[in-house]
Structures are given as C-alpha cells and as structure tokens.
C-alpha cells in the first residue's frame, strides 16, 4: 500500500515500531512485571475468598470429566502396551510398580496440565479478554476497586491449588484403568495390585509431582490471565488471547517438565 498518498494531515510523526527482538524483550519485561504484581498484591488483604472458591470449583468442574476419561484410558492403554516388553523378561509382575511410577511421576501431571491448559487456560484468556474489550476491567478500575486482585489473583491461585489436586485424582483414575486391565489378564488381586504399586512410590516421587503440578497450575493461570488481561481491543483480540493462552501455556509446561525432570533426578540415586 502506498502510505504517503493517503496519510492524513494529523499523522505526521516518524513511525517507530520496535524491532522483533526489542519487542520480545519488552513483552518479557511485561510478563515479569505481571508476575511480580501477582506476588506483591496477591497475598495482601483484602482477600477475595468467595471468588477464589468459585474459581477453584469452576476449574475443577470444567476439567473433571475430560480428565477422568483421559486418565482412565491412559491407565488401560499404558498397561496393555507395557505388558509385552515386561513379558519378554518374565517380569509382568512388575506391571503395577511400573504403571504406578509412570503415572505419578510423569503421566498424571502432564496429562492433567495439558488438558487444563486447553480447557481452563483458554477460557480464562477468553473471559478476561472479553472483559478487557468491553471495558469491564476499566469499569472496575474506575469504581476504585482493584481488578487485578479480583480477576487475576483469584484465577492464578485457583489454578495453582486445583491442578495438584486434579493431578493426584488423575493418577488414581489411571490406576483404576490399569487395575481393570491387569485384573482381566492376570490373577493379581486389587489389593495386591495397589500394595505393589504404592510400595514402589517414594516420598520423593510424591513431592516432585506436587511441585511440578503447582508449577504447571501457576503457569496455566498466569499465562491465561496475562493474555486475557492484556488482550488488544476488538473481538479478534479475545480469540487471540484464548489461543495464545493455550499455545504458550502448553509450550511452557513442556519446558518446565524437562527442567524439573533434570532437577529431581539430582536427588535420585
């Protein structure tokens, strides 16, 4: 498009759009500020307890069905696929331990947070995005209330609290799936199954999974809120916010998973 021909009289200053790299640093700085604000304002009174409860319930409720289904099927499939390899060594009796460890250490945290990034992250992004676009956030601002506290803090906290709980729930449902498969093909009793798998799980496994799930939950909350809260005007901005909440959220979860696997393996001998 020819710019000079159509530039209206009032547009006269030099156009200075920041380059790609400086834009990246700018938005990184923005995100850091957003996270700092969360820690600075999140734990100061007044608290939005009621809204926090509502958000926790909402997140749990929204992802429960999908997580149950995915966890259960993963339990069945993982057990089924692992059996032949173990059978080669005549070690099918290790199946409960293997499934227990795999589910708790990696599958459950990852499955849960990926699903939550899709369901919860996108809806947080869309919800806050449309509140930004329709000036509802500005309206909170001008009525002398702090929208960050009411909207962002509650959602981030809710995700951080709920995702670990959902993670252990997923692990349990996965175990049920595994049990179903095991009891169909082996004569291991339910009791023996749970005993074996629980015995192989260490305190470190539980700690590591909890820490990871907390991290993932926080990431989902922060990314969704950041995208929505800062979404650009217009309906398109809302869609973009929801979309990038999912994409960026999932990407960060994988990176965090890789780092934390490395980190926790330092403690395993």
């Amino acid at each position, binding site marked *: 498009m020819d710019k000079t021909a159509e530039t209206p009289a*009032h*547009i*006269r*200053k*030099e*156009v200075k759009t920041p380059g790609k790299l400086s834009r990246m640093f700018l938005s990184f700085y923005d995100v850091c500020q957003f996270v700092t604000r969360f820690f600075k304002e999140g734990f100061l009174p*007044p608290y939005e307890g009621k809204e926090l409860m509502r958000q926790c319930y909402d997140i749990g409720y929204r992802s429960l069905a999908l997580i149950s289904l995915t966890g259960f099927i993963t339990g069945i499939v993982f057990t089924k696929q692992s059996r032949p390899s173990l059978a080669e060594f005549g070690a099918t009796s290790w199946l409960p331990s293997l499934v227990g460890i795999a589910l708790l250490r990696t599958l459950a945290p990852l499955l849960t947070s990926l699903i939550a990034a899709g369901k919860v992250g996108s809806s947080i992004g869309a*919800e806050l995005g449309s*509140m930004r676009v*329709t*000036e*509802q956030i*500005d*309206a*909170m*601002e*001008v*009525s*002398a*209330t*702090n929208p960050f506290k*009411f909207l962002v803090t509650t959602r981030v906290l809710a995700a951080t609290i709920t995702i670990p709980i959902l993670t252990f729930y997923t692990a349990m449902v996965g175990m049920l799936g595994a049990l179903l498969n095991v009891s169909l093909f082996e004569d291991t009793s339910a009791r023996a199954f749970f005993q074996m798998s629980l015995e192989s799980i260490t305190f470190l496994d539980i700690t590591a999974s909890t820490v990871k799930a907390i991290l993932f939950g926080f990431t989902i909350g922060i990314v969704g809120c950041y995208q929505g809260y800062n979404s650009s005007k217009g309906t398109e901005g809302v869609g973009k916010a929801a979309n990038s909440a999912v994409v960026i959220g999932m990407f960060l979860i994988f990176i965090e998973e890789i780092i934390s696997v490395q980190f926790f393996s330092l403690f395993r001998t």
Partner: protein
Amino acid sequence: MEQKKTTDIGQEKVIEVKGLYKSFGNYDVLKGVDLDLHRRENLVVLGKSGTGKSVLIKILVGLLSPDEGEVKVLGQHVDQISYKQLLDLRLKVGFSFQNSALYDSMTVRQNLEFPLVRNQRKLTKGEVNQAVERVLDAVGLLQTINQMPSELSGGQRKRVGIARTLILQPEVMLYDEPTAGLDPITCLEINSLINEVQERFHTSSIVITHDLTCAKAVGNRVAMLLDGKFERQGTFEEVFNTSDERVKPFYDYNFIQ
C-alpha cells in the same frame, strides 16, 4: 426548549485541565485542551466521532495518562498521585461508560454491590441491600434487580451503569454518551435522570453527547471539541451562533431536519 438554568453553581473548580496533549502512536488526538468544571455545574461536551471525547474523560480518571499538560480533579494532579490516592480520588468520581460496561457474569444486584462492598467493608448486608435498592429506584429499575445484564435493553443497561456509579455517592459524574443509540423517549428519561442526579446528589458533571436536545436539557454550559481543542465554550447560543462550518452541521442536523 430553553437552556436550563441552575442557580447555585459555585466558583470552586472541581476539574481543571490546562494544555492537555494526548496522542496514540503518531495520531494526535488532543492538542492543547483547556477545560474547567465548576462545582454543581453540568458541562456538555460536544464533538464529532473520533475527536477524543472519551479519551479526555478517561484521562480525567487516570485510565489513560496525558502526554503533556495539567490535569487537576478535585484539587489533585491525576497523573502525579500514587495508586492509593488515585483509588481514593476515583471513589469521588463516577464514570458512566459509553457501552455501559456492566459485569456480564453478575446480576444487576451484584453489579451494584461490587464497588460498594469493596470500598465500604463495614456495611452490613442490610445496609448494602438498602443502598442498592435506593440507587436502582433512583434510576427507575428496581424490578430488574435479579436480572442479568444480557436480559436488559440498551437503555436499561445505561441506567444500571449510571446507578452503579451513583452507589459510591460521587461528587463528580462523567457521562460518556448517555443517550447514544436510544429512542427519543428514553433520551428524555435519561436527560431528566441526569438533571435529577445533579439536584439530588449535588454532583458536578461532564456529559458527552452528540444529541443537542440532550445538551440543551442538561447543560449549564457547552464546550465543543474541534481539532483536539475546545475552541468554542459557553452557553448554547454562544457556541452555536456562528457560521463555522465545523459547528453548523451539528445544529442543522438536530434542529432543522
């Protein structure tokens, strides 16, 4: 219709704007705005779409920051005070949005309660309910108290939006196009609501509008935003008694057609 007269306008200035500049990127919106609002006065701001009327009042409540110039509201420099002080100031300044901006996940009652319970934590449940019902009654919409914003008409939403700002008992009201997109009868209702608010709650107001009937009915004074400045200010007659081609169409459209 005669321009309205209010006798007890004070000399004290609640809003003082001097030499205000604001641009977005390379687009200069406000180019040296000067504006005074006196206590208990209703000032009508007119101007073409896109001239920066909404930007101006957003600067007054600190939603946007000025590039240059002095912006004093109730004696405080809006762009220089701390966030805490800004919140205190915003308690005294009601802002009614062009699109109402009701919280669409909350009922009308919750919309009205929202600012109140967060700013006056000592209120009992009964007192909150009483306050909500009082302002909702003032805008004539008591029957909608349990409805969701999506179930209201545009005019009703405007009025709920006004009620939501009144609940904090502001000293200054800023109305962004309160009558835009409404039928003439509802416009008249909103006009008298604005006048009633001025009398009952002793507010000073800035009313942004395109509608000269509204301007005449509610304004003690009129200011016209032209090319980023208030070139014409004064009574209705003073502003429109001109052959300025940028001003005349407003008058002609509203009263001749």
